[in-house]
């Protein structure tokens, strides 16, 4: 078998079309459905380590709404730099934090994914119908070094699934 036949197959035109179709499908899949991301930073420790590769399902919330406990990707100006945070409180709920303990509608929230807690305090806020409250899992860091708070639903790109 010649090298040319080995590389391009018996029907080079068909091979070319197959390659193009595969490239288009891959482009569409990884742009609009499963978006690969690389975590940077320590705000989601221990769930996601800095440098880990993850996938965001952009269709996760096409038919359902985000739930408490979902880890979601949040866009800034575009899709190339994203926040990865966990949803703690849902639209319409009241959220606060005292001495590191999160409260939703006045009741303490169980958060088994949090290993260390510093005594963070957050004044009570009431979320609007379009807002979710998001925080990273690493509460052992200083609150001033940790980006968290209310986010508009339009900013949520998808659910981190891996």
């Amino acid at each position, binding site marked *: 078998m010649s090298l040319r036949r080995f590389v391009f197959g018996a029907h080079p035109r*068909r091979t070319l*079309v*197959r390659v*193009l*179709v595969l*490239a*288009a499908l891959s*482009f*569409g899949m990884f742009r609009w459905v499963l978006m690969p991301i690389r975590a*940077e*930073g*320590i705000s989601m420790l221990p769930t996601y380590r*800095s*440098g880990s590769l993850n996938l965001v399902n952009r269709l996760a919330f096409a038919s359902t709404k985000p739930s408490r406990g979902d880890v979601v990707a*949040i*866009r*800034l*100006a*575009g*899709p*190339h*730099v994203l*926040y990865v*945070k966990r949803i703690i409180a849902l639209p319409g709920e009241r959220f606060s934090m005292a001495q590191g303990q999160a409260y939703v509608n006045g009741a303490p929230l169980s958060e088994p994914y949090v290993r260390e807690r510093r005594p963070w305090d957050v004044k009570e806020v009431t979320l609007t119908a379009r807002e979710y409250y*998001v925080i990273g899992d690493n509460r052992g860091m200083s609150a001033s070094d940790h*980006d*968290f*708070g*209310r*986010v508009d639903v339009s*900013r949520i790109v998808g659910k981190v699934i891996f």
Partner: protein
Amino acid sequence: MTRRRALRAGAAVALAAVAYFVWSRWGSDDERVIRERIGALRDEVNRSADGGLAAISRATNIGSYFTEDVVVDLGKGAAPIRGRMTIMGMAERLQPRTAAFRLEFDDVGVEMTRGAATADVTLTASFIRGSQTGEESRDAREFALGLTKAGGTWRIAQVTAIDVLR
């Protein structure tokens, strides 16, 4: 559908994807110039200058990207920074501190307004700092910029930090 038709349909889909990719990165001349200016500003901020005249030159170059009456609102309760001279002074004074960071701009979106004499830009600015272990930490924020064109040169007249998480 025959096999040949399926292959043609696949090829059409692939061509459409390529066309979309090219179209999404295509823009007017002004838009291209603005993107280049934003990239040049990033390069200037990242350029190292070891004090003295080099630091003054760098600060002057950075200042040239802003209008005289530029307003920079970093939000989170910080007082707005007003004027090109203030920015130049800060660029010179803070040079030793900013040298530890690398600035990157991502997702730069340009929208031309009012007969192409002004433009609105959105972008994500990342301040990346390396550590001794080789790991990098990234502090990213979204910004909205207002640019004006005067004397054929695009300059930044307004910078506003967008609080994605409030």
